[in-house]
């Protein structure tokens, strides 16, 4: 309930009567409503907000016998203030934050918006503070700012932050900036990579903003029951060089951005899973492609209702196929459109299966009338149109698996990434600091 009132201009507290969760289960004993009814009455008559308005961002300080000791104390303070994630943090000193801000094309005081549900005012400086804490570098800031801006404008972002399904931002980056800042599009692109560390820092900074500015603390500001991918979210690049001839980038397909445009596209995913795609024996190229497509569609054909949020305008998920798979499929006639059409057509769920899973009730209570009307469809498509499905070419040069990021995503929000005039200088400094990447060295 607190989440419903903060971030919209009200103080971040409310008159609430709280009960243990077992009260809210079917068949529960609700007698405590009667025994504690005075609390309801007091909420209507006596309650007062305990919130005292805060002013500008405060500076904190710690002292230690040595730098190591001070660093430990700073991390302890961040954790006890509920601003950490359990991993070591860089305290956001003025020097470090000023360094991050070299990557911004906007002034540090520029306001991006209020981060829901808590409603913390989010500026470029706020982003730089988070990026500093997350171990980032200034050349990452433009991508982070674009991702934050996309999140803040995303439909229902306040609910996405708070909901029990625990959606996390998956940030797909297109354009030359991906390679320039060492963002992974290949092997292990969702995990740590010392040669391509940008995704971890940007995603971690975004998560810190979600928690510290947006108030998405586990069990308090976010009811994410499991909370997957919540250390770093998922920040990765599409492998544009791996696109088969004639295929468009994700940014062009979904958002209309011209090739070569630096951009982010934010999907809210609620799970990640491998789909074993490759055949194991003597399949022809055509059979290998088709069998793999069936395995993907079969996996998507599940009445677990994650897709409901994005049924009309969003997406049921992101299907990632490795560049070698995309090329081989293109060689036997598959296109981006025919892949989407196949997945859409063959992930439809017979209404009998929906009914046995109790799924129609969720469709009936959806807030979107277009989605509610879909209850008449049998079989039920997991999204309104094939184009709702996000198809991205990314992953290591290996044909065995595809990857499905199931989504709870009312929208797929795109933003152009704007970099400062000094960007090349920042990239050259990164080469000095981190050494030459495989093909990105500037010195």
């Amino acid at each position, binding site marked *: 309930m607190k*989440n*419903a*009132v903060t971030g919209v*201009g*009200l103080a*971040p507290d*409310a008159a609430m009567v709280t009960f243990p969760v077992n009260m*809210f*289960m*079917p068949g529960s004993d*609700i007698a405590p*409503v*009667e025994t504690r*009814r005075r609390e*309801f*009455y007091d909420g*209507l*008559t006596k*309650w007062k*907000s305990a*919130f005292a*308005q*805060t*002013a*500008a*961002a*405060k*500076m*904190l*300080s*710690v*002292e*230690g016998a*040595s*730098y190591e*000791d*001070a660093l430990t*104390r*700073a991390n302890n303070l*961040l954790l006890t*203030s509920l*601003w950490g994630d359990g991993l070591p943090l860089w*305290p*956001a*000193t*003025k020097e470090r*934050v000023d360094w991050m801000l070299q990557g911004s094309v906007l002034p540090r005081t520029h306001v991006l918006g209020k981060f829901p549900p808590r*409603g*913390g*005012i*989010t500026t470029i400086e706020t982003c730089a*503070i988070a990026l500093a*804490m997350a171990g980032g570098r200034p050349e990452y800031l433009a991508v982070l700012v674009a991702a934050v801006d996309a999140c803040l404008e995303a439909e229902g972002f306040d*609910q996405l932050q708070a909901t029990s399904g625990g959606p996390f931002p998956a940030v797909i980056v297109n354009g030359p900036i991906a390679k320039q800042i060492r963002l992974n599009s290949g092997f292990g692109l969702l995990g740590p990579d010392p040669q391509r560390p940008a995704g971890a820092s940007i995603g971690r900074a975004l998560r810190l903003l979600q928690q*510290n*500015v947006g108030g998405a603390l586990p069990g308090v500001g976010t*009811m994410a029951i499991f909370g997957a991918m919540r250390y770093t979210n998922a920040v990765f690049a599409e492998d544009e060089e791996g696109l088969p001839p004639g295929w468009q980038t994700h940014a062009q397909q979904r958002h209309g951005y011209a090739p070569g445009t630096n951009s982010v596209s934010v999907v809210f995913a609620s799970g990640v899973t491998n789909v074993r795609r490759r055949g194991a024996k003597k399949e022809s190229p055509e059979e290998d492609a088709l069998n793999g497509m069936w395995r993907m569609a079969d996996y998507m054909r599940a009445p677990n209702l994650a897709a409901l949020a994005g049924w009309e305008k969003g997406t049921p998920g992101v299907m990632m196929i490795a560049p070698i798979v995309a090329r081989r499929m293109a060689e036997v006639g598959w296109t981006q459109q025919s892949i989407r059409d196949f997945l859409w057509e063959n992930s439809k769920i017979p209404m009998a299966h929906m009914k046995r899973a109790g799924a129609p009730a969720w469709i009936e*209570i959806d*807030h*979107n009338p277009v989605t509610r009307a879909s209850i008449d469809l049998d079989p039920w498509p997991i999204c309104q149109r094939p184009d709702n499905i996000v198809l991205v070419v990314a992953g290591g040069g290996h044909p065995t698996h595809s990857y499905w990021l199931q989504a709870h995503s009312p929208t797929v929000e795109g933003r152009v990434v704007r970099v400062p005039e000094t960007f090349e200088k920042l990239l050259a400094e990164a080469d000095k600091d981190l050494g030459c990447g495989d093909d990105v060295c500037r010195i």
Partner: protein
Amino acid sequence: MTRLEFYDPSGTLEVTVPHAPRLASLKGKRIGFVSNEQWQAYRMLPMLKGLLEKDFPGIEVLPVDAFPQGNGLIGNEETAALVKRSGVDAVIVGNAA
């Protein structure tokens, strides 16, 4: 001693809308419910309605379904306008979990 100074990372908050003033008493007042129809609201809110009517003679408590229900409807401007037009002195919103 080594001193480290660093930013509070939580951003700033701005309160622009005060919470509604509390009522002096519930006697003779008109109370409504705004329900998302979830988490046993269909049982708890009618129970609360009965308790209010029992404990505060003269109180008027609107039916639980007097306003649009469901997560997608209770937070929109149309519902807020309906609540305002209804002349209720206060509403109870539920249930969250």
